[in-house]
């Protein structure tokens, strides 16, 4: 089997799909590229300020429209901390999870395409008791809510 040819076919297919998506106006070219590349700079930050800067979030507004669900006040095991976030801010585009005192502050960024509910849950690691932030991007503006989670057994060291 000609591997190189297959590779070319696959790459070509991917490109044309991207072009199609871009042409359909779902994504602006810049955003399509951003979604393609893992945001290394943002994931390597280790303070709230640096992370917000790397994400281009500036100073997000505190919002009561961003809420946590299924999220404990006290996590017995920092290696597995359930986090649920719901945003009722109209036109929510993305939801990011930040843990202030983790070695790397940014945990995850979820892009929410139109049609997907701005509500999701996942599980994260926490090294120690810390504030957890839900950063929501809606209509190009940033909103944030926070919650302190106490950790009795850290999930990053050892």
């Amino acid at each position, binding site marked *: 089997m000609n591997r190189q040819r297959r590779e070319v076919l696959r790459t070509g297919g991917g490109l044309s799909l991207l072009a199609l998506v871009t042409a359909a106006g779902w994504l602006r070219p810049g955003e399509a590229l951003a979604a393609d590349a*893992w945001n290394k700079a943002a*994931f390597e930050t280790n303070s709230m300020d640096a992370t917000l800067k790397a994400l281009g979030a500036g100073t997000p507004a505190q919002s009561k429209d961003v809420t946590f669900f299924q999220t404990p006040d006290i996590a017995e095991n920092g290696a597995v901390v359930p986090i649920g976030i719901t945003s009722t801010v109209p036109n929510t585009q993305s939801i990011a999870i930040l843990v202030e005192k983790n070695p*790397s502050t940014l*945990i995850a960024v*979820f892009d929410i*395409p139109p049609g*997907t*509910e701005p509500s999701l849950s*996942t599980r*994260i690691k926490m090294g120690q008791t810390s504030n957890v932030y839900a950063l929501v991007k809606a209509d190009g503006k940033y909103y944030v809510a926070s919650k302190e989670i106490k950790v009795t057994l850290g999930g990053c060291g050892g």
Partner: protein
Amino acid sequence: MADPMRIRANLVGDSTEVKVLMSHEMETGQRKDAQGKTIPAWFIQEVNATWNGKTVLAAQWGPGVAKNPFVSFKFKGGAKGDKVVINWTDNRGDKRTDEATIA
């Protein structure tokens, strides 16, 4: 090749609820082995979920997502029998794609 994901997609009212459990070490790069050598970071970086070719969730992850990651989300639409396809790529370039049928 990593173990398959476990995906459940259920129709709830007019939305589809998707629950995914992936099988991955999600090594942070912070831990040390018995010899005191740092265990290199190994984690899923990108996750994409599509339904009928349309992206319904796209995520970028750092090593702070828990081992054997779990994600649950909902999107509008979907019909019984439709397929939800999920794929991930980790920082070593490993990939995995799995699909589930909406029930």
